[in-house]
């Protein structure tokens, strides 16, 4: 009886430890997520104004995959892409949830749960209204089975081509297509991902494991830190008013200095 109790306690402790360890991210041993304040996504769900933060998405994703809250690369990318697209399409207006339609080419659980949460189309969501969400692969195939298991299988061959999102404003028919800027993902990122996550074409060696972990952390941090127009094609950078003022002051100051020196 005692041995069984010890065994039960040990198993429970291991389970709790594994949950704690995976709370930060699904990449084991990944460094801490940088502390940044990202603008939440504001949407109306019926008459209720929702402030959707990246933490809300991470919590929902954690519940859906059963591993605790996690800010993985795809979830961070999905949040930033949705936030940027909503700002471009709605401007100062706050969209209604049912007015948002998101079509993604990226079959990963992180991005799927993020977009499902934003559109209110995810399982077990307490929502009054629903937008639309679907996954259409780059070759045109529609992914109907959105179970975690199937999405993981579909994600095996993910590449930069999959990081394409189309966000629609259903009421006006406007849409915006967002793809990745060059240089966000290292060249060997997707090959390493395939090796590390799926052992294809062969299991990774220690050096490859370390390299992928480091690249994964850098890409995740880039999605949290960089401005949207540096991350995504299709997002216009705002006109640098501060830079223009400083440049004008600089030129004016230089002219005054030259004139003044010539005067003497």
């Amino acid at each position: 009886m005692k041995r069984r109790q010890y065994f039960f306690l040990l198993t429970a402790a291991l389970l709790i430890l594994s949950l704690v360890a995976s709370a930060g991210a699904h990449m084991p041993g990944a460094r801490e997520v940088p502390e940044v304040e990202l603008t939440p996504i504001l949407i109306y769900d019926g008459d209720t104004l929702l402030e959707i933060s990246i933490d809300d998405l991470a919590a929902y994703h954690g519940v859906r995959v059963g591993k605790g809250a996690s800010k993985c690369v795809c979830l961070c990318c999905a949040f930033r892409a949705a936030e940027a697209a909503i700002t471009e399409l709605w401007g100062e207006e706050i969209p209604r949830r049912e007015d948002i339609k998101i079509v993604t080419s990226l079959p990963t659980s992180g991005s799927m749960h993020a977009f499902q949460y934003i559109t209110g189309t995810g399982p077990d969501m307490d929502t009054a209204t629903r937008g639309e969400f679907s996954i259409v692969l780059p070759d045109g195939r529609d992914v109907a089975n959105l179970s975690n298991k199937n999405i993981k299988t579909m994600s095996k061959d993910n590449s930069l081509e999959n990081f394409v999102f189309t966000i629609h404003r259903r009421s006006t028919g406007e849409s915006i297509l967002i793809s990745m800027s060059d240089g966000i993902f290292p060249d060997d990122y997707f090959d390493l991902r395939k090796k590390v996550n799926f052992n294809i074409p062969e299991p990774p060696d220690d050096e490859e494991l370390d390299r992928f972990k480091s690249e994964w952390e850098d890409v995740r941090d880039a999605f949290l830190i960089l401005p949207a127009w540096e991350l995504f094609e299709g997002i216009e950078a705002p006109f640098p008013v501060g830079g223009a003022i400083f440049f004008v002051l600089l030129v004016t100051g230089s002219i005054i200095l030259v004139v003044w020196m010539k005067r003497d």
Partner: protein
Amino acid sequence: MAEKNDNNLEIIYFAILGLVTFGFGLADLLVTASGDALTLGILEIPGDMFRGGWGGLIVLFAGLFYLSGCKNVAEVHGASKVVTGSILIWIMVATDIFAMITESIPGGEDGPWFNSLAGFLGTYAPPYAPVIFLLPFSLVAIHYIYKKRFA
């Protein structure tokens, strides 16, 4: 009497400027020691060894020159210390602005030869290093250069 009041104003002005400059220099050094740059709104305190470490030391000494010269700024010795403090600031500002200019013209590593207008102006956008904010206040020292030149 009026001259004495002017002197008091000058002393207060350069004492405050000296303290602020010294503070910025100290902040540069502390931030560099911590390893990361620190951004507070439109102010960015650099954290690299060259600009934050050596640059911080120069700004710190500029502050010391101001503080040392402010007491007898009406005399040539005090005025020369104040001018030296300002020259140190101008050296730092000139290198910062030169870096901005050279960075603003090309289109980046994988980009075109020349930057876009938004990219060009974006290089001059905030945040700025502390010395940029000190520049307009340091220009008062020009008054002393001319005052002594034509005395």
